[in-house]
């Protein structure tokens, strides 16, 4: 539950951003992030809120780590948490084909 997931900001509308997470586009709230966010930025999303703007220098490494996590099987608990964050659903609600 405390594991966030990075995504790329596609559009900003007031306090809501449209964010791309590995091809899944979802709205993320910008209420608590502590820096201005513009399209092209990467943010760390936790339960539908951007909690951090990922610094330019950290983007590649952060994405590489999650690419690795997402290659894990369905039974992997951390990957299930990350997939849940991407789908915007709790892990048990994510279907294997989702």
């Amino acid at each position, binding site marked *: 539950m405390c594991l966030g997931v990075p995504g790329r900001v596609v559009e900003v509308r007031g306090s809501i951003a449209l964010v791309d997470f590995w091809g899944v586009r979802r709205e993320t709230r910008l*209420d608590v992030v502590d820096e201005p966010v513009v399209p092209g930025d990467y943010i760390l999303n936790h339960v539908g809120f951007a909690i951090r703007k990922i610094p330019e220098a*950290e983007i590649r490494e952060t994405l590489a*780590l999650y690419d690795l996590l997402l290659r894990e099987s369905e039974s992997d608990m951390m990957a299930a948490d990350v997939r849940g964050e991407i789908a915007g659903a709790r892990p048990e609600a994510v279907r294997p084909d989702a």
Partner: protein
Amino acid sequence: MPELVRDTGVSELRFRDPGRARALAATLEQLCTQIGRDSVSVMHVCGSHEQSIAKFGLRTLLPKSLNVIMGPGCPVCVTDVPEVDEAVALALSGKTIATYGDMVRVPGSSRSLADAQAEGARIEILYSAAEAVELARDTTEDVVFFASGFETTAVATAAVVLADPPPNFTVLSAHKYIPPVMEIVAEMPGNRVEGFLAAGHAAAITGSAIFERFVEHHRIPVVVAGFEPLDILAGLVKLLELIRDGTMTVENMFPRCVTAEGNRNAQAQLWRVFRTVGGNWRGIAHIPNGNLRLRDEFAHLDARRRFDIDVRRLWEYAPATLTQSCVCGDIMAGIASPDRCPLFGKECTPDTPVGACMVSNEGTCKIWHQYGGHPDL
């Protein structure tokens, strides 16, 4: 040697290189020799840390004398029975309960929210506090957001409270605050925790500096670490160096994600909405300042103050006898391990959980069950 790499790829080696893992394990061995005691216990407080440790069998790499314990790092697991009872009572009185998925199956004194749902109560599982507000906007009925999670997740609840939710929206807060429980667990009889590994993403909000007061008061070092195998091993190396040298500080080994001051905007919202109060953490102890409750200014959004919650009628039912054999509390306090529980893997499984530690993906019992029952073997 556990298999650290399951696929080939350049990026993997950066996080899971077996050679680096072995080198870090050898350093840990040296450090334990230098410390020179029969046993050294350190605690982490993060479900994601335990998932990595169990999955990659990291405990098999560790020196015999180093004991890495999962403490109370699962917010669902420490939600106390009376808190679940409050949600169940509200559900049975006709309010819609919106909550995170894991909370639905946590046992109360006579029922879980899933049981209440089977009796006709309306329970909505959601992913974000923002969805609970949307749910309230779409109906005229009362929607109670049964909010769980540590400070990282409480920030999201604070944000929706501050964003002018509709009048039929209220919050039943079961949010918990981690630093106070570290103080209690560190002082527990039967426990000799000499260092803490703190969770990376939680500290992204609070900042690593949040632990400075704890370190000063308890003379126990804290290291903030990421959640990949090499991050954890490197965090343990740093922690053992601090223990060996008697250096009582907070060290940040996850600068990729964590700063000393954290996210100040998020902290400001968190403390504008919440105050800390004492309360029980399931099975562990009364934790002074361990619970987050809405401030008076937001009483109109606080389900506890808006509604007369009568939990007494839930107590007519005798508690399940199995629950009395559950050692979840001792497990989260670091005194017992899941395989010592007589119910583990028998009466208590992820499909039929007796204790809360078997419900959540962050619970020690569920993690050990998923990765083979006893990750040390």
